[in-house]
């Protein structure tokens, strides 16, 4: 439970928001999060954007899926060692289709798992400091400050051309 007051500055422009993020630390405030209706490269860089590990989950899913698809087809064929239509019991050419589709399927499932893990969704507590204008046309920069310096933080945002909102 943060005892520090949190203030959000709502900018109409992501460039201004990014500048504000960069100058928050110098001014002695703590940057928490930036919200926006669209992804913004400027905000990502200002907030110290690293790469996203989602791809590793996707890759893991894909490798598993590839193995699983072939394993499924080969296992089910091997249970009944009967030549059907003159084709070998275990035939890589048609089983490749199964392997390929399972690769895609499990890559996507891995992707979804990766997304949920990395974004920590569902996350309803994050909505406590969410302003509805951030899903419309404003980029909200959420910062916290030591108790008592609230006025300065409000002034900081106002000087940068933002509307402000406070969460005590």
């Amino acid at each position: 439970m943060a005892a520090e007051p949190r203030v959000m500055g709502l900018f109409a422009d992501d460039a201004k928001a990014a500048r504000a993020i960069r100058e928050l630390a110098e001014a002695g405030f703590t940057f928490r999060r930036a919200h926006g209706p669209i992804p913004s490269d400027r905000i990502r860089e200002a907030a110290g954007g690293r790469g996203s590990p989602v791809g590793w989950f996707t890759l893991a899913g894909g490798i598993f899926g590839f193995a699983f698809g072939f394993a499924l087809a080969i296992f089910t064929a091997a249970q009944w060692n009967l030549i059907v239509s003159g084709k070998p019991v275990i035939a890589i050419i048609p089983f490749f289709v199964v392997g390929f589709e399972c690769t895609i399927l499990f890559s996507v499932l891995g992707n979804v798992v990766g997304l949920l893990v990395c974004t920590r969704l569902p996350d309803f507590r994050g909505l406590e400091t969410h302003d509805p204008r951030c899903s419309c046309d404003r980029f909200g920069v959420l910062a916290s400050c030591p108790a008592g310096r609230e006025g300065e933080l409000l002034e900081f945002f106002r000087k940068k051309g933002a509307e402000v909102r406070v969460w005590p």
Partner: protein
Amino acid sequence: MNRPQNAPDARPFGKAPAVFGALCLAAGAAAFAFGLGGERPGRAWQALLVNFLLWSSIAQGGVLLAALACTVRARWAHPVSGLAQAFAGFFPLSLICFFLLALGGKSVFPWVGEDLHGKEAWLNLPFLLARDGLGFLVLYGIGAAFVLQDLRLRLSAGNRGGALRRWVAGGLPTSPEESERLRRRRRLFGGLYCAAYALVLSLVGFDLVMSLDPHWYSTLFGGYHFVKAFYLGLGGLIVLAALLRGRAGGEVPAACLHDLGKLFFAFCLLWADFFYVHLMVIWYGNIPEETYYVIRRTVTPPWNALAWAVFLAAFAVPFLVLINRRVKSMPRPMFALGVLVLAGLWLEHWLLVGPAFDPEAVELPLGALEGMVCAGFLGLMVLAVSGMLRSFPELLPGARPAEP
């Protein structure tokens, strides 16, 4: 009106390409002549056929990228659009080679003189030469017209350069309306080139590759040929772009190289998909009339080794390498990959063509002769592309791009 502010260095490599190209060409021509005079002239003709197909495909596919980018208004391709058009320099050489092939007779077309039970209406030398010759003329003519419009939009007025450049520069636009007209014509010829590409390369695939074994057929063969040609064209373009890295005015931006790499990856998959589609349908139907063609090329020695080499060089290695994000914007690895793919697809041409000429072969018909003839064609391509870039340095990425 176009006036490139920083006219790029007209000779990014100096005289080296011309010397290299001439040497290679001389070696190839000598090898071809020796082969013709030797005990198996057929091998020389087959080397000519294979290399004609491969290098023409590289040129046709390369120009297709420029035409396609113009037709669909792809802005990302602007830096390399000029380089892609430089491959059009090979078109006249390709046409000459095609008519040279006609002299090969049965060595190039095994069905000459055979009883084809009615197929002679289609597979006879005069008709084939006429229709394919006409096809190439149409395709290359449209391609040249497309490149001409684009050059006229890039060049600035001036009297320098050789006869070709002066002729092109004779039609420069003198007003915004004329520029607009040139742009419209360029888009028209770009679109027509794409349509002609699909039709003519399908025809070439059927007539010059599939018909070598006149009793076998596949409806997708034409499509396979033109997809392979685009894959080849992209490979050639990547090799060229990578060679120009670091040269003043010739450098392709990393982002564009990255995009080119992604398209290359996509067509690696598409080419492999078309190959697999053939394999799957023929394997599954298990009809002997169809399967013998595939079995001979993928199962029976010595061709099975070639098949594995093709699979590795043209699919497996490029696929695994190109999955990585960073490698696509690095010129050196992309150069190596491009060369590997071109080599792999050269082998693939041999895989398709070789067994048709010599089904009983005990060892692969790939020796010094084939290598030297390939070098000869490499020389031709180098001369053609460097010649185009020397006459029209505005095609280089460093020049101000033509307006979209």
